[in-house]
């Protein structure tokens, strides 16, 4: 996301990223748009999202429900229903655009080069098979190994994700395992073929806080040992602070701010990010009450013209009726706000 000199065009980052394909980028998403055609209305769930994922880094995708986080990730794997979702833009992986390759090629990438873990560990494993079978299935699908060899590798994967006595556990069914254990199995499944990209959609949301920390710790470890780049989708800023290197903040289908974790947490430049950080409970400072962001997310069948956050924004000015571009604040730190940098507005707030 390094735009060296932001041009006034709406999507200045797309072109810059395309030029910089060799700086360790594993996955580059350019101007991704996803529309769902309804009977009478069309919902634009993702509107011009661009980001770059670099090798061995983790990218946090933050936003509230309905901001287009999950849809973007499903679009990357092309798992959205083909009859209702219209996808455009570019998803560059290993020199090819994932949106233009055939379904068979795509299937060979899924679970092999790009994998995904889901939010609900309780429901994302098949209740009819042992967990070992499910991990082995992924290995058998992508590697030419015997069943016995796949099983051995599956048990090894379960050991890698720190499941105690993996030989025994592998023969158990999902209902014999706790939520945290199941999420470990999901991670083992996703990492079984050493993918280059792991998309984790709210991997810790359904888990206890203590288990959350263990899972994040596990992901962090695996990232450094296997070099897998991670896209971590979450609405939890605490998780981002703990586990990510870079962050994009999404609002109403658009990226509103992008930068490194330090930049976003120390100098948030979009009023929405400021609002999100303000609504985070903290123990280290005195706060009478948590600040909630007033209003609700706009109706995406008819997104508002101009800045989509304007209706809820305390810094709103007339110019906000025009669509703001991604403006660079610092190298690598961009924000979709006319009033950036926000520090100068401190008196107003």
């Amino acid at each position, binding site marked *: 996301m390094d735009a060296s000199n932001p041009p006034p065009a709406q999507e200045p980052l797309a072109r810059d990223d395309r030029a910089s394909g060799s700086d360790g980028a594993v996955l580059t998403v350019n101007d991704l748009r996803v529309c769902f055609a309804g009977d009478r209305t069309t919902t634009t769930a993702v509107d011009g999202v661009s980001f770059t994922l670099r090798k061995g880094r983790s990218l946090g995708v933050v936003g509230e429900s309905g901001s287009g986080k999950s849809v973007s990730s499903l679009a990357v*794997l092309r*798992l959205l229903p083909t*009859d209702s979702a219209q996808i455009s833009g570019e998803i560059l992986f290993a020199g090819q655009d994932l949106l233009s390759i055939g379904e068979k090629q795509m*299937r*060979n*990438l*899924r*679970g*092999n080069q790009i*994998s*995904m873990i*889901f*939010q*609900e560990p309780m*429901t*994302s*494993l*098949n*209740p*009819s*098979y042992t967990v070992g079978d499910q991990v082995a*299935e*992924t290995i058998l*699908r*992508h590697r030419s190994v015997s069943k016995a060899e796949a099983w051995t590798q599956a048990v090894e994967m379960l050991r890698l994700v720190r499941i105690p006595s993996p030989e025994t556990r592998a023969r158990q*069914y999902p*209902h014999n395992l706790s939520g945290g254990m199941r999420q470990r199995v*999901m991670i083992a*499944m*996703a990492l079984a073929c050493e993918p280059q990209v792991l998309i984790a959609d709210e991997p810790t949301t359904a888990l206890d806080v203590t288990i959350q920390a263990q899972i994040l710790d596990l992901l962090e470890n695996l990232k450094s040992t296997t070099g897998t780049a991670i896209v971590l989708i979450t609405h939890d800023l605490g998780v981002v602070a703990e586990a990510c290197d870079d962050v994009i903040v999404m609002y109403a289908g658009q990226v509103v701010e992008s930068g490194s974790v330090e930049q976003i947490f120390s100098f948030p430049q979009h009023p929405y990010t400021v609002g999100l950080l303000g609504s985070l409970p903290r123990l280290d400072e005195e706060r009478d009450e948590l600040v909630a962001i007033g209003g609700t997310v706009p109706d995406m069948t008819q997104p508002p013209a101009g800045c989509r956050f304007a209706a809820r924004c305390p810094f709103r000015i007339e110019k906000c009726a025009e669509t703001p571009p991604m403006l660079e604040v610092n190298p690598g730190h961009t924000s979709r706000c006319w009033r950036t940098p926000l520090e100068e507005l401190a008196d107003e707030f």
Partner: protein
Amino acid sequence: MAQPAIPYIPFSQLFESRVWRRFSKTKSAVFGLVVVLIVVFVAVFAPFLAPYDPAAQIWTAVRQPPSALYWLGTDESGRDIFSRLVFGARASLMAGVISVSIAIALGVPLGLAAGFVGGLVDGVISRFTDAMLATPFLILAIAFAAFLGPSLTNAMLAIGITATPLFIRLTRGQVLSLRSEEYVEAARSVGNPGWRVALRHVLPNILPQLLVQTTITIATAIIAEASMSFLGLGQQPPAPSWGSMLNSAQRFLSNAPWMALWPGMIIFLTVLSFNLLGDGLRDAFDPRSKT
């Protein structure tokens, strides 16, 4: 989740499972299971259980009332009713099992295709299903059987085809509700092709519902077979069938009522038992049930 997922139970754990506990507490369901097992036993071991040849006519003992010699009496040609009921269980059970097997073999793949492929395929299959379900079951089955010609095989075929839409609709509905389950999405996300997701990840998880539907449809099929045999479209004489026994009994209702009584009771009891078993299974598999 549109519907609570049903926990799959490996066979080795069946008798310790919650499903079994709930099932075994339902008296009516256990009664159904016991009767069904008895009928199966009788059908399998018919030659050893029947005291007489079911087709042997004893002209000196025509329309005998129940006695120590002929436990349930004899019919108009002097054939032992008990022996005919025992062998008739074969026709009824076969009609039930084979016709429902045909319905499953046709209906489940079509339902999977409709649910998974969607679009035009779903449209065609679903309209066809709706059209068949709009016609009363027995009328449609009799129409098919009449078209195919009278024989037990054709009756089973006709009943099987008529019961197919029941399985199409059930499978399609279950697929649609399971398709959005995360583990199905997860199966796709590791690179499984659609057919594999359908057969390996969806099908095993709808087996309980299919089992319930199978049990209840067997009851319907037994009634249908009896009705067709009664009309002369099913089992052909002299081979015994509960339905054809009723048919010959109707002419002697006033002077030999036992000829109609026993087959009627047996049909009633068997069909009731299959239905009780099906209801019991449905309640046992349903995690929302109260027991």
